[in-house]
């Protein structure tokens, strides 16, 4: 351990630690900076994080210094303020007066630093500024405005160190230096939008989010990506019931600071045209929109055989459902004596894994389903259960999309009730479709492939008449004469912790980075190979 004195206050830190981080820990807030990023190699190009060190004649940049025991650092002297202001003046010399049209406005480091350290009279006339490329798409998702760039080199470092795709570089010299993609290249790797997050100014902006919403109107809800089994932590930025973008939320254990473009853009599906907004029932001319009472009446009639006795029920769970929903479905099935077919059609929903974040398993909660005792199933099992005396209940599972015989499989059942979020292939075959809340609209848990349980939080409200799946299950139970004592996901989680083995880690609560669950004895191999689910069951 080493002791340093920051602005007269003693602080303990590691010997040899990066001084920037030590000062950030000591002061509770970072020094002004553009180029420093904890997950990227130090570049030391922006010169903003100047500090005075006792015994060193000139100010030095903290990001490139190391902690030595007894070091005395001053960060708030007049000299530092003056130096930072001068450097900022350099950065802004040729910066366009673009803030009104710049999407970065509101979360722009330049704006913040100018308000903290700038506030000087501009020394260059607007007309004399050097003009560079503006509104230049450099990839499918990224827009470049070279004028706004402060040459912090974060984006180039990202493409060379993290994705190792080397699309971007700094070209020309002096006043005319600018970032761009290498000639003939485009920024089209699956992580390109991370450069937008990294960019401290408005040089790189997202074409997906471009001009959609001013950032100060966005509310931020911490959540987890539902795109694959990695479970990247993310922040959902939404406003007035609409999700506008998703950004990675730092979690060193899972996704560091990054997130793939695919996962980011998944939110579009929330507002898709085919989102199920009201209950539907099958009719001659196609699905018909009804209200909940009528939908339940239809379920009731499906459940009642001609003789008046109640039909058998078989349930299919899903790796897209939260732990609470899966647990509710399990309790529901046990309660009414239904057959539990499984959570996933074997082999479906798999893709290519990459070596950064994307997992081969494209479902967010397969591990959770497995831990709750659900298994994968084959088409035959579905067929075996099929009889004219059985009603199939499907929770958030679109297995029909992966089996060409879906129609045949399901037509053998007396009825199919689907709790889903979209009018997908399975919903098309359903007799009754009940709209439930999606992952972005409800609280819950996903367990990623490494057994880390992470919390989702409801960000937007969801369609007006959609209900939480556990509520729908409770109401369906009531239709069958069973009273389950849960009203919300929280009650189910408490029940889960109390009754099931292996969930004890949840008892003390979960912080924003999630909690690693105990390894279950019969659990599948968890690790790099977890993408292939086959051997587990």
């Amino acid at each position, binding site marked *: 351990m080493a002791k340093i004195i920051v602005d007269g206050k003693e602080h303990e830190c590691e010997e040899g630690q990066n001084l920037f981080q030590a000062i950030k820990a000591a002061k509770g807030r970072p020094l002004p900076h553009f180029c420093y990023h904890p997950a990227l190699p130090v570049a030391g190009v922006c010169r903003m994080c100047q500090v005075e060190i006792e015994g060193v004649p000139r100010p030095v940049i903290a990001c490139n210094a190391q902690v030595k025991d007894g070091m005395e650092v001053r960060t708030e002297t007049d000299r530092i303020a003056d130096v930072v202001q001068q450097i900022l003046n350099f950065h802004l010399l040729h910066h366009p007066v*673009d*803030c*009104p*049209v710049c999407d970065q406005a509101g979360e722009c480091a330049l704006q913040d630093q100018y308000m903290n350290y700038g506030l000087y009279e501009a020394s260059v006339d607007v007309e004399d500024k050097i003009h560079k490329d*503006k*509104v230049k798409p450099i990839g499918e998702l990224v827009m470049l405005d070279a004028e706004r760039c402060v040459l912090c080199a974060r984006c180039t470092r990202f493409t060379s160190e993290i994705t190792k795709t080397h699309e971007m570089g700094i070209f020309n010299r002096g006043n005319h230096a600018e970032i761009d993609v290498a000639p003939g290249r485009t920024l089209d790797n699956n992580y390109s939008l991370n450069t937008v997050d990294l960019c401290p100014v408005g040089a790189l902006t997202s074409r997906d989010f*471009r*001009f959609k919403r001013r950032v100060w*109107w966005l509310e931020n809800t911490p959540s987890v990506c539902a795109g694959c089994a990695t479970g990247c932590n993310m922040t959902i930025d939404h406003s007035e019931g609409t999700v506008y973008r998703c950004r990675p939320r730092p979690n060193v254990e899972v996704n560091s600071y990054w997130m793939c473009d695919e996962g980011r853009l998944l939110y579009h599906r929330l507002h898709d045209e085919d989102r199920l907004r009201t209950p539907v029932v099958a009719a001659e001319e196609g699905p018909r929109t009804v209200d909940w009472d009528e939908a339940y009446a239809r379920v009731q009639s499906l459940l009642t055989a001609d003789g008046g006795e109640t039909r058998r029920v078989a349930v299919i769970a899903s790796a897209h459902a939260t732990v609470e929903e899966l647990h509710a479905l399990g309790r529901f099935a046990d309660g009414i004596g239904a057959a539990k077919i499984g959570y996933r059609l074997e082999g479906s929903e798999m893709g290519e894994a990459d070596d950064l974040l994307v997992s081969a398993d494209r479902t967010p909660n397969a591990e959770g389903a497995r831990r709750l005792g659900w298994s994968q199933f084959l088409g035959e099992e579905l067929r075996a259960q099929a009889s004219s005396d059985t009603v199939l209940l499907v929770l958030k599972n679109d297995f029909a999309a992966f089996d060409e015989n879906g129609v045949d499989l399901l037509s053998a059942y007396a009825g199919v009730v689907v709790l889903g979020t979209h009018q997908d292939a399975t919903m098309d075959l359903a007799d009754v479709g009940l709209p439930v809340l999606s992952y972005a609209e409800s609280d819950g848990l996903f367990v990623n492939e490494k057994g880390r349980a992470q919390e989702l939080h409801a960000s937007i409200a969801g369609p007006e008449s959609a209900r939480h799946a556990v509520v729908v299950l409770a109401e369906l139970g009531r239709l069958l004469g069973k009273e389950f004592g849960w009203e919300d996901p929280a009650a189910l989680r408490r029940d889960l912790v109390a009754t099931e083995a292996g969930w004890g880690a949840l008892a003390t609560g979960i912080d924003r980075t999630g909690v690693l669950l105990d390894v279950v004895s019969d659990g599948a191999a968890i690790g790099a190979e977890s993408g292939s689910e086959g051997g587990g069951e």
Partner: protein
Amino acid sequence: MAYSVHGPKAVSGGAGARLRRGEAFYLVEIVRGMAITMRHLLYNMFHSSTMPTLEYPDERPEHGPWLRGRHRLMKREDGSPRCVACQMCATICPADCISILAQDDDRPDVEKSPESFEINLLRCVYCGMCVEACPCDAIRMDTGIFELAADSREAFIVDREFLLNNTTDGVNR
């Protein structure tokens, strides 16, 4: 009109003030008051044209340039709105009456422009903050139009085209 004060006691006034003997019956004072009102009536009957009242719809009041009237959107030389949809006005608006949808603009010198620009005039409190917030001098409230009448609530939600041509002479330069 100046007030005339009758004696020091009237000045110290208040509920507890005692009236003089003559005033207690009010009669004299009532007659004096009635003489004043009648004087006004008779004077105004024969000098109706000197009355300060404006015959409003026929005579328009003059107002200073500081009057905040109905909003207008300024145009560029080519007639397109000067607004860049930066949402500053919508952000500052205390009445939350401005809603703007931005769009990519294809023109080389314009990056962003309002796809729609709506002001709910029923919500507007005419504080003028939008004008002060605008970095492009794109919105002004100097039309001098202060009358609002329509036969539906929807008619008060004015759109981009309306605001672009919202002056009596139709010029928003």
